């Protein structure tokens, strides 16, 4: 062990009644020696060794005991009991009452509760706003612009339907195909006209020359034209049309006309 002050330090440390372990002290004191300014107290940047700390604390305790005894030798320090208590706190998860009452006036604090969201939407979009939809106008304009030109890559970029009068008639015919042949029955079709569509021509294969082929003479540009080209069909449609109109005409004006005609004949 080196000499100088550690000896003294050791003695004081050993004298300490704190029950500190001697081994610790020795270790610590050698450590403090290894640092250049081990025991110099004035420089507090340097670490204090354990025994120095002990000595300091003991001395401080003695000093404080004396001073406190001098200060309040008569009065006993008495703990002041609590006068403030924390309240139970349900936290922010608890819902608030929507109506706030101040004095005799009650008000709904959240303005969004005054008008329901559906009403607000209605007021913003419909004729209630003077026929000018404040919110929707921009939105609808945008949707018009944004309307896709094609059905997308998943549909091989099928184009938007170019609804010519001919195509419209053909599509209507397909929808009403149940009238073309009285022996064929189809499901009811209430769907709208397709948004995206293309018209193609089926070309028969080599094997279908006799089985499913329309002769060159019967080929027309549209379905409607093909139907009208057939004599039998035309007659049937005419007959059907007559049936329907006659049943619709029964009674009403037709009946009255006939009645008048009968009266006229009886007069003569």
């Amino acid at each position, binding site marked *: 062990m080196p000499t100088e002050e550690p000896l003294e330090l050791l003695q004081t440390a050993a004298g300490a009644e704190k029950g500190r372990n001697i081994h610790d002290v020795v270790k610590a004191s050698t450590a403090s020696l290894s640092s250049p300014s081990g025991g110099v107290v004035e420089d507090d940047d340097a670490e204090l060794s354990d025994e120095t700390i002990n000595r300091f*604390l003991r001395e401080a*305790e003695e000093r404080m005991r004396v001073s*406190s005894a001098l200060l309040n030798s008569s009065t006993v320090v008495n703990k002041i009991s609590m006068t403030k*208590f924390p*309240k139970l706190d349900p936290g922010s998860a608890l819902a608030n009452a929507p109506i706030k*009452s101040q004095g*005799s006036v009650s008000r709904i604090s959240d303005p969004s*509760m005054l008008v329901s969201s559906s009403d607000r939407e209605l007021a913003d979009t419909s004729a209630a706003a003077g026929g000018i939809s404040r919110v929707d106008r921009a939105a609808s304009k945008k949707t018009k612009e944004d309307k896709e030109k094609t059905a997308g890559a998943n549909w091989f970029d099928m184009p938007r339907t170019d609804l010519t009068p001919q195509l419209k008639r053909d599509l209507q015919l397909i929808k009403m195909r149940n009238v073309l042949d009285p022996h064929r029955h189809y499901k009811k079709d209430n769907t709208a006209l397709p948004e995206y569509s293309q018209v193609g021509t089926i070309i028969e294969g080599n094997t279908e020359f006799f089985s499913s082929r329309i002769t060159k003479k019967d080929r027309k540009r549209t379905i409607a034209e093909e139907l009208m080209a057939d004599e039998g069909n035309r007659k049937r449609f005419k007959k059907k049309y007559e049936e329907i109109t006659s049943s619709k005409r029964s009674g009403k004006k037709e009946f009255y006309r006939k009645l008048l005609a009968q009266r006229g004949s009886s007069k003569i």
Partner: protein
Amino acid sequence: MADKSRFYLEQSIPELQELEKKKIFTKEEISAITKKRSEFEHRINSPAPKPTDFTRYAEYEMNLDSLRRKRQTRLGVNSRSHAGQRRIFFLLDRATRRFPGDLGLWMQYIAYARKERSSKVLAKVFASVLKLHPAKPELWIFAARHAVEVNADVTEARGHMQRGLRFCKGSRELWWEYAKLELVFVAKVLARRRMLGIDGAPAPSDEEQKQAEAEAEAAMDLDDDEIKLPTVSADELSGKPRKDHLVDAAALEDITTNPALNGAVVGAIFDAAVKEFPGDMAFVRGFWDLVMGFETLHCRGALLERVVVHVLDVAPTDAEMLMLGVQLPVVGVSVANPIFPARLGTVLDNMREAAEKAVPRGVLYERFATFMVGLLKSAMEEEGADEGVKTVMFGTLVKYFKAAEAVDEASVELYMRWVETMKMRGKAAAAVEVAERALLKYKGHKGLQKAIKRIQAQEEL
């Protein structure tokens, strides 16, 4: 729908007739009220009403009722009927029946019943809302708070808490609040004993009384989260010390033998709670903070010790939890108290041991530094603090700062504390040096740069 609303509307006819007869409302006003009510009734009886329909109706009825009351008092007309209040209760009842899941409506019901001070309705509403929403811990806490504050019934509050815990075992808040309830109860009992002069303590000296008054003044402008008790005692009030206690004073004065007043209940709550949250250190931390809030409670130390014992058992290497054990000896000990140096010695011993065990050592160093700087600040402010103690604190801080730096676990926070310490010691140059060294590690940290600038500005002054 129409006949239903018609039925409810017709029920209010006698009341309106009475109001008209007594000239509280004019005929036009009555027709306006009817029109408005009809509109609201049709709305709430529609096939798909919204909660806001009920709220708006209730708002209208509340305002109408307060107008009626004002007119009645002004005209000097007395009416025995409580039709207005009953109408609103009935409306809120219908609302909560229609929308049992809307807590806003329930809270509105409770708020109105509270305003009207109708305890019967309140009891009914609390019972049904708790029945319908048993898994919402905040409602149980709210009910317990109501029981304590309004009914002044701790047993009822305790019942709410315990029933709540059967449904929401996993709610930390509920456990904390239950512990808080019990702590407040003990603290209140002790405060009451003191007020009544049966706590065996001598009468407070003048100085103390002044201090208590000053505290009371300060408490007046505190936020709404605290309950304030008057500081006057029964002796002061009656002007003479009361000697005619009928009960056995000795038994009453001895609070040490009563386990309930020594935190046994809170301890039991803690033990039960930690079983629900194995390994949840955030829960323990919250509990610790809660108990720390009760500064003058005599059983605080014992409770904190219990927490520390548990923590050392389940997480012996967790840095944050070790810190709780480290700081325990000086908790509640004033810096000017003669026993403080000895306690500080124990803290330093504890810290030495903890530093060997702690797993994120950097965290321990950081927490210790924060704690020590806090102590140091109070030592600087307090008059009775000894110079030697301060020197020890500085020395220890520097030691651990260097230790943290040596193992390369010094966080930004730690460096900030270091700079602060150096500033407190009046070593501006050293503070700047530390901050610059920290900036090498944490490049471009705003706080550090600001700290350097502030020190330099002070130097120039």
